[in-house]
């Protein structure tokens, strides 16, 4: 897979301009800034892969807090609740990345992007960011078209494929619970911490500074796809890609497509003007009692 580099993406703006294609004029792609800056009230999770022991207490507690059924898998004839990925019954999961005889754990759940692709994709706003930045899902607006799944860079929203009346399933940071997310509450090792994002960023940097050489000097989610509210720390010798976190740059996923939508359809001026111009041309070309040109 030849992935796109940020450079290739940005050069697109130049190409679009060079082609003189009015229909795809891409305004100001060059400043790939996030549409939404971090707010002091934003909440999120900090996951520290170096502290996680893979006990999966978070996965189990998440299921009970969200009324999700088990994802049973038979291991040596014994059924376990053992989801291998996020799915229609699993809003958070612990996965293991093995490298030779070494291994590391990773927790997956919705990243709560600052500029989320799911929110940008959804036709009638079934996904909306709340005042704390958490992306809530409203099933009464959902049509099940699954564009959110196509759009999400982290493959987070999951669809109930086995149901005739399906909904989407994704972590909403336990916004129905007063006491906050269930997963962080039960973590025995402070590997999953819930809090305000500025505090989480400070805590992540504190941990990095406190144990020189232990951590990779990066916080995944600080800048990825324009920033996410869930942040990751990993060991110095375990890159984030090894943990299965996608290699993405700082461009918010919706940046290019929304620039086009806004550029072309702003105030519906361009479409209305185009309609008037086409209408006049057609009217001129069909008047003269031209019976022949009726469709």
């Amino acid at each position: 897979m030849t992935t796109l580099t940020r450079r290739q993406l940005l050069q697109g703006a130049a190409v679009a301009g060079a082609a003189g294609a009015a229909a795809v004029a891409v305004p100001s792609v060059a400043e790939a800034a996030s549409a939404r800056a971090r707010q002091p009230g934003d909440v999120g999770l900090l996951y520290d892969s170096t502290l996680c022991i893979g006990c999966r207490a978070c996965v189990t507690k998440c299921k009970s807090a969200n009324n999700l059924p088990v994802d049973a898998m038979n291991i040596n004839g014994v059924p376990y609740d053992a989801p291998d990925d996020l799915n229609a019954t699993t809003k958070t999961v612990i996965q293991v990345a093995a490298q030779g005889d070494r291994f590391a754990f990773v927790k997956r759940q919705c990243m709560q992007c600052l500029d989320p692709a799911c929110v940008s994709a959804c036709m009638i706003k079934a996904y909306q960011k709340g005042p704390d930045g958490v992306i809530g899902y409203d099933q009464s607006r959902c049509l099940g078209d699954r564009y959110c799944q196509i759009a999400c860079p982290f493959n987070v929203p999951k669809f109930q494929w086995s149901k005739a009346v399906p909904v989407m399933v994704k972590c909403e940071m336990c916004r129905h619970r007063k006491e906050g997310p269930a997963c962080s509450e039960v973590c025995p090792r402070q590997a999953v911490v819930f809090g305000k994002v500025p505090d989480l960023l400070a805590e992540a940097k504190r941990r990095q500074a406190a144990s020189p050489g232990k951590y990779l000097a990066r916080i995944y989610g600080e800048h990825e796809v324009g920033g996410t509210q869930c942040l990751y720390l990993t060991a110095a010798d375990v890159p984030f890609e090894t943990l299965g976190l996608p290699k993405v740059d700082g461009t918010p996923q919706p940046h290019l497509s929304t620039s086009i939508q806004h550029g072309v359809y702003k105030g519906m001026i361009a479409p209305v003007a185009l309609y008037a111009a086409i209408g006049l041309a057609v009217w001129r070309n069909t008047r003269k009692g031209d019976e022949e040109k009726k469709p």
Partner: protein
Amino acid sequence: MSHAPATPVGGKLTTPFFNFMALVALAGAAALVVRFAQGLGAATGMTDGYAWGIWIALDVVVGTALGCGGYAMALLVYLANRGKYHPLVRPAMLTGALGYTFAATSIIVDVGRYWGIWKIPTYVAWWNFDSALLEVALCVMTYVMVLWIEFSPSILERWRASGTPGQRSFAESAGPRLDRALPWIIALGLLLPTMHQSSLGTVMMLPFSKMHALWFSPLLPLLFLVNCLFLGYAMVVAESTLSSTGLGTRRETRLLGALAPTMAWVLILFVVLRFGDLALRGSLPAAFVAGKYAAWFWLETLLLLAPAVVLLGRNARERASTQFGAALSMLAGGILYRFDTYILAYDPGSGWSYFPSALEILITAGFVAAEVMIYLWIVRRFPVLSSATPAESR
């Protein structure tokens, strides 16, 4: 210059071919029961990784483009004022109306919560203007209606000529009103595909981090627009050739021959835009990395360049078989481009794969069969094809 008026083809409807189509349509309808009773997982090969399959990539994304014959011909006849192509407009509008109706119906089958679709056009306050898909949905819904209105003169004509008294009086009162409104409806029929066919390209810009460099492009909207134009022209040629062969109507070789250079230049424009964009952004080397991506990319390119060369030659003006072959190649290349953008180039990460299930394919085949049946019924009963008019009455 006067054209032969369109006349119904007539003849027996239930030919063995028609009956076979009916069988396929029935099988598709039976498969639909499984999809609606047990959900999408039981009926399709789609997964959380590949959340869109052939119902979106073929039925909707390709299906609407194949319905762009009406759009492509209307551009020539009404905007460029090339009246001589007018006999090709009516059958193209019919194919378009059927193609878009089929695409819109497929969406109802594909979305998980289909009973809420009515909210899209009605809950204006919920509209998300960031979503290219919303633009596609609204435009397609409107354009289905516009296409049937554009085709309606054919129905009114038949009712005026040989309808029941009720049909005749309706046709006589509605006809003149429709005639006055038509220029503005035709203009809407030119605006809407320009908008949603380009937006179908924008739709796949949102997941750019999962897209292969050979298909992702900031020019996706423009490429999809040009692509739907040449697919539209190719459909006009293929449909005309197939009806004259299958229904025994007159061939329109000269008229289609006159269209050949236009088709060739649209193809060349597409290939130049695509290569220019890839080269300028430095993505072209990916076309020389051996593997499935490069293979499909070059197959697409060859399927489009070959007919471009052929259509500029003399044979394309005079020989029906050359025109038909070129049209088939354009269709294959253009369809592949759309399919690849939505399925092949989309990579959700390791561990996921997609292949349509038998039921999924059967439902798509059933829709296509139903579309062919309705086409045959309409052209036999209603004045659509001017090639059905005997030559001496011209």
